[in-house]
């Protein structure tokens, strides 16, 4: 087999040395007594690389490819520069593991430090960790963290938080003694009045999202102030690309920030691997889950990077750890770091501006279509909702036939919104594509 570097002669020598001269490796498994043996192992025969590739390409062609994407929902079709793919493909990065041995892992460690720095920069927060699984688990971890910090157990979730993430948080906490209230939002900003009704002195945290699931941009400063008055924390889930334009969570005095980093150079890849990130105020550092890398000096006074604050973690604290996370999404964090390095300060701003400009252009074109109602109760970044004169699912199907993924049908998560579409526009969508989208939609609706 092509992955085993010992030929039969080496194997014989090895077996002989360890006292199995008859050459039967089976004897090494004698602890697995016959009655404990596998009762079946009915797998296909091995194939060659060429055959497997061929087969999987065939499967790939069973997906409908080359749709022009106007779907987002927290996961966006941004361009990934070739340098990102090229650099994360270096064996020294992708075939290493968690940098337990700093002297053999300065590459990974410095990258984590730089990643944490970039996350702090774009969010404005004090400290960040090395990554969590995805934006949803990051938000859940933040909720747990707020419970630990405040020693309270009531959580208020804004309805503008991704319904997927809200479901995840509910799942994870079913067996825990945590009370939730969810405050509905309908394609606009957070409903302050309703929210405030739920905030009291037992509240551990308010969970917000900006831009929210409907694309609405908000300034949550007032909510944060209210929360803090009650001794509650505020957790905000953000879309990192938007931070090239939008007021930072730090500026709103948010306590814990999380987000999905997929938009930072990570392929959509049918849902993963993605990148959860988390940043918080300095004072909550020791309550944060996940690995953290710090800069220190070595015995020769050289700068060195190490995993630090490890007494928070499972391998030291076991059942008392802040989280059970061990393997995280390191290579995705590296992708995000390289992507952010390529973008730079100006690049992130320009990218955000392009996304919004194109989104506003799309809004305008779509609003010209008879029967299409572009929701405008609040400003948006690069995603917005429209109301159609018919059920959204019908329209989507016909648009797919025209090669366009026209948006996400909000009815999927909001039963009263069967005729709403959530539309996302990134820098990759050309003017031409947007016009084609609007024309096709008009065509589908009216001819």
């Amino acid at each position, binding site marked *: *087999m092509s992955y085993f570097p010992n030929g039969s002669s080496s194997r014989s020598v090895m*077996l002989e040395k360890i006292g199995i001269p008859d050459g039967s490796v089976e004897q090494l*498994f004698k*602890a697995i007594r016959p009655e*404990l043996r*596998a009762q079946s*192992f009915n*797998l296909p025969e*091995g194939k060659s690389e060429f055959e497997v590739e061929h087969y*999987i*390409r065939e*499967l*790939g062609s069973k997906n*409908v490819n080359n749709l022009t994407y106007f*779907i987002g929902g927290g996961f966006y*079709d941004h361009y990934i*520069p070739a340098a990102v793919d090229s650099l994360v493909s270096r064996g020294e990065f*992708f*075939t*290493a*593991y968690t940098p337990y*041995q700093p*002297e*053999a*892992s*300065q*590459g990974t460690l*410095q990258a984590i430090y730089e990643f944490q720095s970039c996350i702090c920069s774009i969010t404005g927060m004090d400290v960040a960790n*090395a990554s969590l*699984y995805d934006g949803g688990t990051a938000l859940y971890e933040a909720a747990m963290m707020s419970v630990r910090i405040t020693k309270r157990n009531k959580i208020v979730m804004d309805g503008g938080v991704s319904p997927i*993430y809200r479901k995840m948080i509910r799942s994870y906490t079913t*067996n825990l003694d945590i009370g939730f209230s969810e405050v509905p939002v309908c394609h606009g900003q957070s409903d302050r009045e309703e929210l405030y009704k739920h905030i009291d002195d037992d509240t551990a945290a308010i969970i917000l999202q900006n831009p929210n699931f409907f694309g609405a*941009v908000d300034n949550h400063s007032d909510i944060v102030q209210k929360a803090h008055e009650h001794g509650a924390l505020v957790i905000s889930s953000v879309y990192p690309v938007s931070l090239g334009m939008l007021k930072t969570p730090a500026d709103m005095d948010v306590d814990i920030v999380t987000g999905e980093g997929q938009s930072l150079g990570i*392929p959509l890849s*049918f*849902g993963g*691997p993605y990148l959860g990130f988390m940043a918080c105020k300095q004072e909550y*550092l020791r309550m944060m889950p996940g690995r953290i890398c*710090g800069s220190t000096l*070595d*015995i020769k006074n*050289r700068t060195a990077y190490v995993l630090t*604050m490890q*007494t928070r973690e499972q391998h030291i604290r076991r059942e008392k*750890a802040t989280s*059970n*996370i*061990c*393997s*995280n*999404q390191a290579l995705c964090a590296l992708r995000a770091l390289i992507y*952010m390095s*390529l973008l730079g300060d100006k690049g*992130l701003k320009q990218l955000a501006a392009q996304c*919004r400009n194109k989104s506003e252009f799309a809004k305008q074109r779509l609003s010209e279509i008879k029967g299409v109602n572009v929701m405008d109760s609040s400003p948006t970044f690069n995603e917005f909702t429209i109301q159609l004169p018919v059920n959204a699912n019908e329209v*989507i*199907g016909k648009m797919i036939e025209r090669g366009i*993924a026209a948006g996400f049908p909000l009815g999927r998560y909001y039963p009263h919104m069967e005729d709403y579409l959530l539309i996302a526009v990134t*820098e990759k969508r050309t003017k031409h594509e*947007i016009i084609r989208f609007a024309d096709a939609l008009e065509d589908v609706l009216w001819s």
Partner: protein
Amino acid sequence: MELIFDKSDFDKAGLKLPSPDVPEAQPLDEVYLRLDNTGLPSVSEPEVVRHFTNLSRQNFSVDTHFYPLGSCTMKYNPRFTEKIASLESFASLHPLQPQLIKGGMLTQGAMQVIFSLEKLLSEITGMHSFTTQPMAGAHGELTGVMLIAAYHKSRGDKREYIIIPDSGHGTNPASAAIAGYKVKTIKSDSKGVMDMNEYRNAVDEHTAGVMLTCPNTLGIFNPHIKEITDFAHSHGALMYYDGANMNAIMGKARPGDLGFDIVHLNLHKTFSTPHGGGGPGAGPVGVKDFLSRFLPVSRIIMREDGSYALDYNRPDSIGYISPFYGNFGILLRAYAYILYMGKEGLIEASENAVLNANYLKYKLKDKFNIPFPEDTLHEFVISLKDYADSGVRANDFAKALIDVGFHPPTIYFPLNVKEAVMIEPTETESKETLDAFADAFTALADIADNRPEYFADCPTGSSVCRPDETAAVKNPNLRYKT
């Protein structure tokens, strides 16, 4: 090395964006706007490429070095699975695409991958159904414990404890705890496996489940495994199998046959997906039939016509564990790996992994104390406590190994061995490499005997040597500041 931020200058950029082709939008109201800079480093593409290329060169990795990190299965990561994961027909696929047209008709290929992988993993482990949602081993454990909770709850049976042997991985108790359980730890006996007496005393009607690794982190296949699972079952507790060590027994034994009810696998260990410098991995979870109804949504099911659909209508499900279907790109790699290896290939992988470990153990056993030397499979644990007594600790050996070109084994784990050095060579290393490692390790023992002071400066050949970890905690410097 310099930080990427040190190369920053305000009007440099590493990426050109498309030229604007739409009018500029009316700006947002200022209350919504970021007014400061983002703080990202502004550097050119050549600088980014050289920076990260040279950063990478400071790492040890499987591609460059022997990396016998015990419990981590640092085996070779095939190149063709990387290629397959980057095929555009998968890599560019939006996770919400299946929801655009009912039942996932737009993503049949991707759904078939998951469906088929679940079937293969079920057969490999002897389980009945699998979810691919968990994104790492620990995430699988958490999912598993949530399944345990859901099961007992469905029976109106409130249980309190999860039982875990002291040799269990830290994630086991952590996962149990964050899912709401208390943890009972059982000591290991003189053979290195869970003490049966203590175990029998611990299990009772408050026991929700037992989490075991088998072979355990000492590499030992517990001969009482069937008694253990039977005993738990007789008290209504469920058996959880931490599959991190599955690489030892493929085709030889299956957790399902041994009486386990829930299993997680680490695809980034047993199924050769890359470790990525710490992740992403994948930790799919398999269960016996009676637990299937609790698995996370969505499930991928096959319709009568052979097409695949997403099923959300599962009232007993524990809910969403991942936003979608798990770390799909990792699943795809593992699927390709299994198809490539096939039945015989997987069996041979385990056989070679066990042979390599036993050969290396043989090479080291005369010189070193191996507290639990019997019947180890894919890994084994040395205790350096004799050397530690004379001042050379496991950590010192580790640092000295770096100088001679080997990534150190796992040290100070499992916790039931003093000055533990946990060695897992894997099947993708050659006898010549094992010989070289054994010679080097043995040579260090000689040095420890004669010149213990040698270790203080090790490693000398790396860009850093023994960073001050205490200072790192005391005065945390966790990010670049201008």
